[in-house]
């Protein structure tokens, strides 16, 4: 009886070891190719699909405070920027254009968050490149940035009217990105 079992096992291994080895090799190569194709700097966002974090910050170049609660009820774009951030300069024109186009429409609100910066440097940055047509809040110690999971600037969050973060963009924004994200939070241009 035992010889029969061992014989079947032997024939099974004998017949299948080549296809099995081939499958394993192809599988490993596939995983390797997948790993090579991935961006090692890509970081999945924990915030997408969740409510926008609460914050209360001083407002740049204006009196009063900026509260997350006051911004609820409308789609919202939150852009983290700083005067020391080189990549922020390359998205500045896109933001100026977006601000001029959307700020008056009442469809969407835009808020800048000046991250780990000084108010004087931020104001100098805006006076040389053009002031945003929307307010900016001051996150000098970067604590609000941590709540958003921000780790590099610029970063932009797109929040829908119910206060849920629908998209996060890391790096400078361009026109095409903006159109794509606006559609996600239900804003028509």
């Amino acid at each position, binding site marked *: 009886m035992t010889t029969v079992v061992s014989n079947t096992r032997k024939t099974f291994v004998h017949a299948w070891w080549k296809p099995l080895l081939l499958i394993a090799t192809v599988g490993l190569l596939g995983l390797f190719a997948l790993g090579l194709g991935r961006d090692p700097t890509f*970081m999945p*966002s*924990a915030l997408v699909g969740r409510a926008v974090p609460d914050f209360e910050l001083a407002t740049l170049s204006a009196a009063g405070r900026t509260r997350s609660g006051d911004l609820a009820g409308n789609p919202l774009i939150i852009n983290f920027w700083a005067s020391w951030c080189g990549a922020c300069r390359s998205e500045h024109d896109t933001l100026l254009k977006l601000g001029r186009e959307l700020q008056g429409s009442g469809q969407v609100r835009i808020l800048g968050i000046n991250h780990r910066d000084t108010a004087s440097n931020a104001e100098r940055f805006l006076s040389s490149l053009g002031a945003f047509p929307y307010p900016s809040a001051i996150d000098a110690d970067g604590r609000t940035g*941590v*709540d958003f999971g921000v780790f590099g600037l610029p970063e932009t969050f797109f929040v829908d009217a119910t206060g849920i973060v629908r998209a996060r963009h890391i790096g400078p924004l361009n026109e095409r990105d903006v159109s794509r994200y606006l559609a996600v939070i239900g804003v028509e241009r």
Partner: protein
Amino acid sequence: MRLVVRLLVILLASSSLLGGAGAADGLIQEDRAEQRLKTIASGLRCPVCQGEAVYDSHSTIANQMKTLIREQVAAGRTDDEIRGFFVTRYGAFVLMEPAASGMNLMIWLFPLLALSAGMLAILVLLGRRRQAVAPPATSVGGTEEFLTRLERLEP
């Protein structure tokens, strides 16, 4: 007067001793807090570095994360609560070791599975080789036949 001076000396000496003990206590507590910082920060990935722990990195974000860990340790939060704080903000990516649950369980189980499969393959191959080597030893008849043929060759 002398008595008063003596009493003062005794009072001063004892207070300085107590003060010393208090300072040592503080040092031990600080040490413990630093130890916890090391444990937690070594298990968290610095978001802007490549495969470096928060504890080993001197980037702005890693330093800020260390400050936040210190604050939360001082506030009496547990290690798991502090790790959870960063996971809700930066995602499970922030953990140096992925949690052994869900799809991540595969990462932990796959090496074990591969190792057992390899060992099984070696055992099967060794078994087969032994079987292949064994028959000639039993074929005594072959040797005898060879010997008879050899004898027949003699004149």
